[in-house]
């Protein structure tokens, strides 16, 4: 009987080694099934003399286990050979995903900085009238100070719900400031993001449509020092904690005193490079204390209330922050441009 078992084992080794995946199942039945030779030998165990029984029994069991193991190994080997293997080093399959526009990313980041100080975001219409875009902001209708606010006008004869003067596309977000101040009582701290329009020929740094964020606050005791504070906080949060600010006196009809704000160049850290044209400073926003005439035009008593306002171009900030050198990239919507902002 021992010889028979060894013969079966030898046969099994030969056949399993040579087997294909399809044959494995039948080999399993042949060598380990209920009608297999080993099963038959097990049945014949009781014919043996008692002294031989344990020895042969153990031999049968060992042989079964060996065959079983061989079948398993063979099946694994075959699976690998048939490609059921996992190679983590192969190049990946592309996975589509969505993304926010970089202008949204920057606008929301700016909003976040001011929201944390208690500001609230509001929006205004893009079609405005001369009163809100100019007069209420202390900008005389025909004066060189209007030159910086060149404006698109709508066809004559059109009107909105309440129109004062000709209709136009707002050339800045400040009309929304007037609307908020006329509708709500101070104290106020509001941020207005949105599209604005100016008849500027399109080139690498200009566009007839761009985005602005306007912020303003009105309270009983807001001072120039508060304006400096919120803007320094803003620049250090948005750029780096080391960012330096320079407040340069300037002129806006709706603020007094007015300032233009430069940040220390984020590229060269103020040493001078091509981006900052060698002087180490980058102009990023305009600001000032709200002109008492503007407060009065909104029915706010300028003897009791003071305020500050600031405004910036979102494209300008995004270009500096991301190192984008052509404003047109924002509006072309090239996928290779958009997908660079997946990570934000």
């Amino acid at each position, binding site marked *: 009987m021992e010889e028979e078992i060894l013969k079966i084992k030898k046969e099994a080794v030969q056949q399993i080694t040579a087997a294909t995946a399809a044959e494995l199942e039948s080999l399993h039945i042949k060598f380990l099934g209920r009608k297999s030779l080993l099963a038959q030998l097990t049945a014949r165990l009781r014919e043996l003399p008692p002294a031989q029984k344990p020895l042969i029994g153990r031999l049968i069991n060992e042989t079964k286990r060996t065959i079983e193991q061989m079948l398993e190994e063979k099946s694994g080997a075959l699976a690998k050979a048939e490609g059921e293997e996992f190679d983590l080093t192969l190049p990946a399959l592309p996975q*589509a995903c*969505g*993304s*926010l*526009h970089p*202008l*949204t990313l920057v606008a929301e980041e700016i909003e976040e900085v001011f929201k944390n*100080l*208690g500001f*609230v*975001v*509001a929006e205004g*219409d*893009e*079609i405005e009238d001369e009163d809100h875009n100019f007069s209420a902001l202390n900008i005389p209708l*025909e*004066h*060189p100070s209007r030159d910086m606010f060149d404006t*698109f*006008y*709508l*066809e004559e004869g*059109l*009107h*909105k719900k309440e129109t004062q003067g000709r209709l136009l*596309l707002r050339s800045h977000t400040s009309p929304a400031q007037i609307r908020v101040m006329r509708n*709500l*009582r*101070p*104290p*106020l*701290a509001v941020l207005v993001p949105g599209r604005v329009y100016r*008849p500027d020929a399109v080139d690498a740094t200009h566009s*007839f*449509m761009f985005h602005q964020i306007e912020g303003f606050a009105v309270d009983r*005791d807001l*001072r*120039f*020092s*508060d304006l*400096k*504070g*919120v803007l320094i906080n803003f620049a250090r949060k948005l750029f780096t904690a080391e960012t330096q600010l*320079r*407040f*340069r*006196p300037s*002129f806006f009809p709706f603020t*007094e*005193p*007015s*300032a233009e704000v430069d940040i220390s160049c984020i590229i060269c850290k103020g040493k001078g490079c091509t981006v900052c044209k060698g002087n180490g400073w980058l102009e990023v926003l305009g600001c000032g*204390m709200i002109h*008492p005439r503007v407060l009065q035009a909104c029915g706010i008593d300028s003897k009791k209330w003071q305020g500050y306002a600031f405004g910036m171009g979102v494209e300008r900030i995004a270009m500096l922050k991301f190192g984008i050198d052509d404003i047109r990239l924002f*509006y072309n*919507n*090239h*996928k*290779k441009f*958009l997908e660079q902002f997946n990570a934000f």
Partner: protein
Amino acid sequence: MRFSQNFLREFVEINIPPAELARRLTLAGIEVVSLKPWGGDWIFEAEVTANRPDLLSIWGLSYEVRAILGGKIKFNTYPPLSSQGSLPIYIEEKKLVPFYAGRLMEGVKVERSPLWLRQRLASVGIEEINNIVDITNYCLFKWGAPLHAFDAAKIKGAVHVRRAKEGEKLLCLDGKERTLSSADLVIADEGRVLAIAGIIGGKDSEINPQTKKVFLEAAVFDPLSIRRTSRRLGLNTEASYRFERQVLPFNTAQASQEAVELILRQGGGRLVGTRKLGREEGKKGKRVTLSLARLNRYLDTRLKLPQVATILKRLGCEVRLQKEDNLLVNLPRHRKDLTAEVDLFEEVARIYGYKNIPIRLSFVNNSARVSAALEFKRRLKRISVQAGFREIVSFSLIPEEEAKKLSGYAYVKLINPLRSGENVLRPQLWGGILQAFRYNLNQSQSDLDFFEIANVYLCEGKRVQEETHYVVASVGEGEKDLLRFKGRVLTILSALGIERVEFLPQSESKFLSAALVKSQELSLGIMGVIKVGAKKNKKAKGFIFETSLGVLYKAARPPQFRPFSYLPGIKRDISLALKPGYHFSQIEPKLREVGGEMLTKIVVIDFYKGSNLPPGYRGVTLRFYYQLPQRTLTAAEVDTLHQRIRQILAESSDIILR
């Protein structure tokens, strides 16, 4: 404004290096954008804001430099002008010409200017012409008052300052002939126009080598009138630039007197007549009271009275101490931009230095409340990104032809567009996405899934309205791509809590196919299929869903938990083919009716095409899900129901079952 250090130094002390002066000027609000060495001199190029016409002269700059550096000013001034002799001048538009001084010189010799004069002009970038013209230009830069010299021999009779006759022509100094309108102010003689007032002179009466008699005009013209003519003619000169921003009679009279003195010294001759119309203003301007307490509170500074008084005096103000902490300030006549106390706050702040004002940061008080609509917009952007769409930004201005193609919408037009390519405010958003698709396909990009949230502009009669829209779109080819897009849109809607969405077929000429998207009787918007029209991919179609943000906001519901069943459901598939033009929505209600609450969902799991289908038929495999929340269904009852559903499909002559 371009100026040189040596020119400035003649009139005000400068005791710091040029680079330092440039920095100090910039920090005081006169931004020096370039500083270059020039011979033994330095040339400054400064940006002067629109409120400071006084800085368009060496004279005004000197006050500014004195305020910053504290040195002395050395200006010789002349007494007021007075008329002498007879010189016929008629001002026909007195309101537009508040001051006019005409002066006649004879026996003048026209020649090249002396070196010092040529250098002064070269340093400010003005070409030399001859001694007479050069002197007027020198005085323009020094006093900020434009002068004009005429060859008096060419003036026939009296000088008239009048409006031009419509269509009158003038050959100008730059050699170009210009046609005038009746709004333009001109200088004329008895017969013809000699110069466009405040903008440019005429060729014929220009000073030439043969000129012996010179008529020197020094005048103040109305800023608005000059601005309109200059804009209409597209002609911006050193003179018009200053007149637009306001020129003062005092400076004008000073410039006139210095010019005559220099002309007589350089070119010989004698003054034979002066005619002055209007008056120079007195030295003292408006009076304003400044409270030190208010100043310190406004700026958050701790300035003392003497400090404030010194700054104001150096700027040319006269200052007197009033009771307590108040200063009575007499504003200098050349600072017309200063009118109120707050203007003085700025003057003090900028000379004291913005950098010396403290910094304060605190949480703000606010009566404004967070806008739920804006929060919704933010949320929708994030949901769209989650569904795999990329946000784009496209222009609100589109060409009129494109607006015309979108029949059914009235649109808003601009009167002064930059180009005809951007002259209409768009009445919908999807045109912008389509353009982005075309651009990307032509750039060989694929897998294009975009969205945008922006305003559209509508016109009802003469009433203009704008509202915020949301558009989401993908590029694809066949029905399979469309239905995948539809699935993603439904995912977005369901994330907003908008369920039970219906699609009602709609015929819209601009779309290949379209459906009105509704949810519980509320029309959400239109979904449509349109040819993209890309050169590089002719088959590409755009799948578009556009809706108003307001409508979505109205339809949206906050997330709400609904108990779900753990019991297994049963699914059964049916393959069928739809006749061309037949919509599944024509039979779906019947299926739903029969399916009742057991039929929980129908989805598409496969598409097929094949020669075994009649031409045009679309093959599709639908999967029907059956489930009840309260108990497990038996295979037998599902089979019975499913069989009835098959039966309904089989009975339709527009459907082939497989």
